[in-house]
């Protein structure tokens, strides 16, 4: 199974470029994301993680490079197009409405209706199926207002919302940044279960402990270039940190002969 998915990445980016005015933020980035695997996207502030993610999600178009999804080259012009492909992003601020309950939030903007009327029964049933499918047992009721939830529970709701739509790729932006120890463990195990259920997951994180714990695959960005994308089992904590801070680690990474990478 891993070999098979290895051969065909769900998402494959080749030579992605993106500039904002005179600033070249992404300089020929390659990235492979596989179904059933957690791909950690790491890199220092300003390495281009957010730009890469927003491009994948269709917030803005890349200037150059190939965007290949399920083996086909695609043009993503807006977030809807990304959603239609099965790509969902859970942003760091979660984008939940505190005054609505869990079901309402999961279906926000894509409510199920019978004629004019909201189909609350079906929405509640589907929300519960999704949460049960993810083995979420931390919610008291799907009719709880989000304002009454803890940070970890909110993260859970946001992730569940992302997988509700038969999505194939879920992008998580710093899901554990604001959480305590116990809740971080809960969310990480949820991330693991997403991948085990066959989804492709991109996890952005600054926390190396989290990355080493849950990632199958680590992609390190360094100053707008992909320093290296490696199997998590092949590298040590220290090597990843070197990739992030210097762009290379021994044999791995951007070698000085490239010229630009040796800063």
């Amino acid at each position, binding site marked *: 199974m891993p070999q098979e998915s290895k051969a065909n990445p769900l998402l494959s980016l080749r030579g992605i470029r993106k500039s904002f005015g005179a600033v070249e933020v992404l300089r020929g980035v390659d990235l492979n994301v596989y179904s059933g695997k957690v791909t950690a996207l790491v890199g220092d502030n300003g390495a281009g993680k957010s730009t890469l993610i927003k491009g994948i999600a269709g917030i803005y178009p890349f200037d150059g490079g190939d965007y290949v999804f399920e083996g086909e080259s695609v043009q993503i012009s807006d977030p809807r197009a990304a959603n239609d492909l099965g790509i969902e992003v859970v942003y760091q601020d979660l*984008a939940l*409405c505190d005054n609505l309950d869990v079901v309402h939030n999961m279906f926000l*903007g894509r409510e199920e*209706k019978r004629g004019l009327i909201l189909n609350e*029964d079906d929405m509640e049933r589907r929300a519960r199926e999704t949460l*049960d499918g993810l083995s979420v*047992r931390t919610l008291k*009721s799907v009719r709880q207002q989000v304002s009454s939830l803890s940070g970890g529970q909110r993260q859970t709701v946001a992730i569940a919302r992302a997988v509700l739509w038969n999505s194939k790729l879920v992008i998580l932006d710093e899901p554990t940044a604001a959480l305590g120890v116990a809740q971080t463990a809960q969310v990480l195990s949820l991330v693991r279960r997403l991948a085990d259920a066959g989804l492709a997951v991109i996890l952005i994180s600054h926390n190396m402990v989290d990355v080493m714990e849950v990632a199958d695959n680590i992609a390190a960005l360094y100053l707008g270039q992909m320093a290296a994308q490696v199997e998590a089992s092949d590298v040590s904590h220290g090597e990843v940190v070197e990739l992030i801070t210097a762009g290379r680690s021994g044999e791995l990474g951007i070698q000085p002969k490239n010229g630009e990478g040796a800063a």
Partner: protein
Amino acid sequence: MSTQDTAASTTSGGLRGAFSDYVDRIRGGNLGSLPAVLGLVVLVVLFTVLEGQTFFSAFNFANLMSQAAMIIVLAMGLVFVLLLGEIDLSAGFAAGTSAAILGVTLTQNGWPLILSLIACLGTGLAIGLFIGLLVARLGIPSFVVTLAMFLALQGLMLLIIGEGGTIGIEDEFVIAVQNRNLTPIAGWILFLVVLVGYALFSGLRLRRRIAENLTHEAVSVWIFKVATLAVLGGIGTFLLNQERSRRPDITSIQGVPYIIPLILILLIGLTFVLARTGFGRHIYAVGGNAEAARRAGISVSRIKIACFMICSTLAAVAGILFASRDNSISPTTGGSTTLLFAVGAAVIGGTSLFGGRGKISDAVLGGLVVGVIANGLPLITSQAGIQFIVTGLVLLVAASVDALSRKKSTT
């Protein structure tokens, strides 16, 4: 397994469970309509004790309903705007301007009633569209836009009404809205239709949700709600059906005022829009977290424009009620304390000034509280100063409760 758990948590314990849930909610800062209900009870007891003869009479009860009706309708519109976290200070004069259009076309130009009504409501709609465009497209704070409109509409109204100063209304339909009543039999039929309709609708929904193992309230809670409606509605209908004419031998005045079914229709219709349609859900979403709503693909500016249009159109409806109650339109129609009372009503009822929380029924409850104050205070003191101070204080208390509950629920 967890399916069972999630469903069970809201059903177990029946009435007692529901009560402890309610206490938890209040502790958590979500007071809902509790302050309004308490306030209503306290005020009614207070005024009855101080000035029972006049206050607690059948005549005054009907009078109070008609006074409160205008505040309630105006407040219903404001709920839509407040839900977004916006404000409409011009709603009072939107009511006045629309009423002026009604008066001029009907009395001076002799238009048919239906055309005049359309012109009146259309005026409200246009005012709301204008405000909404300025707020949503240009991004001017609604406070400033509607403050400017507060002044501009006042001027527009003066121009429309012209030199005469007051326009009389003679149309029987417009006058009937606030001054005529259902026959006692029709009143009881209305009561039964509403009661049975509510019991049937909510009961069938409850049965379906129990059968399909979805979250639902306890059956005992449903029985309690239906029983409360039966008792309160029954008492209200009975009181309104009493003879309240001072000279029954000359003219008999009894029955439920027409205004009550009108308010009921608005209450049910608008509650349906807010609670059961995608549009209503999106209003709450925009009020709760506009950025999240935008990312979910909701057109925030369209929702905003629509809410301002609903608000001003309901203000036009309130304008018709003003015209009907006074049998005329004057430059002060919709002015003075009108808007303050309406905003106060919505907030006292439990609608948050910070957006995202509120219901149409808040406007009804809060409108009754404000109506009782406006009706009862002049009976105990003739000093206008005291009346203003008390009303201002009530609004401040309501806003404080709102701010405190928000603070509590976010920390």
